[in-house]
């Protein structure tokens, strides 16, 4: 069936409107030629026009989707874009890790400072022969609540001899392996969690030093500790700030890459 010239004109106009759905660069380059090809098809006396219109509709749907996908790929999927974004993301991840790790270490190591002095002084007094009960002041620190530093003296077997602090009414004892390590190395600095299994278990920044025996006694150990609650809260804040900075940097990289990709996208020939 031949379309009348009026109907053919209408179909061509409709096709011209549909061509606006193609991406700009593609449309700019090929729309006149595509319109001409459609016009030629309408004029072709050997072509069944009942079949032409469904074919063209199918072709429009698939090729418009395909060209838009190709445009997105050519704009944002260029290897240079992906490579640059990956490099910048890796750098920002490294920077965010440093932003977290450096203050975290400074805060954590700084949490040991009072205990280092306390343990050293107490060890010196005990090694001068002062009895543990006399060397340790009778102040009572609740390890779970108080942020004050405290000291505990243990005998050579790790049994408590004198303590300034208690947890749930008892004097907690570090694992035996810690004493073995201190016996060999003289000192251990650790984050000690005397209560396990609780949702907010107590964590202690602890220094344990060896006390040499005096007058044939077997010696012992001094533990100086402090609840890390406040330090850990600060570390948590640092972690949040570093995380937000990281997300922000990734967002800026994503946005910057998208804008850069858009302005440097391949143009129509």
């Amino acid at each position: 069936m031949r379309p009348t010239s009026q109907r053919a004109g209408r179909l061509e106009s409709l096709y011209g409107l549909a061509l606006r759905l193609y991406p700009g660069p593609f449309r700019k380059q090929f729309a006149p030629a595509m319109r001409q090809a459609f016009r030629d098809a309408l004029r072709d006396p050997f072509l069944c026009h009942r079949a032409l219109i469904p074919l063209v509709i199918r072709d429009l749907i698939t090729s418009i989707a395909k060209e838009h996908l190709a445009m997105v790929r050519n704009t944002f999927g260029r290897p240079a874009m992906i490579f640059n974004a990956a490099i910048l993301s890796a750098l920002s991840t490294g920077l965010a890790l440093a932003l977290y790790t450096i203050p975290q270490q400074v805060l954590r190591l700084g949490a040991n400072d009072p205990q280092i002095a306390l343990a050293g002084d107490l060890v010196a007094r005990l090694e001068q022969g002062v009895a543990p009960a006399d060397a340790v002041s009778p102040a009572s620190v609740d390890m779970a609540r108080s942020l004050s530093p405290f000291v505990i003296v243990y005998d050579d077997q790790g049994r408590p001899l004198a303590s300034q602090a208690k947890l749930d009414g008892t004097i907690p004892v570090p694992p035996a392996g810690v004493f073995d390590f201190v016996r060999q190395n003289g000192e251990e600095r650790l984050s000690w969690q005397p209560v396990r299994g609780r949702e907010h278990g107590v964590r202690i920044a602890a220094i344990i030093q060896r006390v040499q025996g005096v007058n044939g006694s077997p010696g012992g150990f001094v533990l100086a500790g402090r609840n890390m609650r406040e330090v850990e809260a600060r570390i948590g804040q640092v972690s949040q700030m570093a995380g937000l900075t990281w997300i922000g940097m990734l967002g800026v990289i994503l946005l910057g890459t998208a804008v850069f990709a858009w302005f440097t996208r391949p143009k129509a020939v």
Partner: protein
Amino acid sequence: MWMYISIMAKGTAPATPLTPAVFAILLSLAEGDKHGYHIMKDARAPQGGGINMGPGTLYGSLDRMMRDGLVEETGTTDDERRRYYRLTRLGQSVLAVELERLHAAVSSARAQGLLPQGGR
């Protein structure tokens, strides 16, 4: 300072097997320079691949084939401003490789009795 390292994007010739549309376009242009609708007509014919291709598919394929260096515009237009295309040397080579591949497949099918002797 943001330093962008550019990686040159190079058009690479498509590996065979080709898509039906690309094969039909190469086959059509092997006969000589043609404009868009002429290629569509050739592709529709059984001897041209029997591909019912619309203008979107044709020009999308031509766009990619030009970038891959398989075809090029002749630069000539007729009185209705139709644009003409021709095969490049690379396009001729790719078509030859594809025809060899298809010929080998058809010969093998014929040897196994899957095609009648002398059949197309």
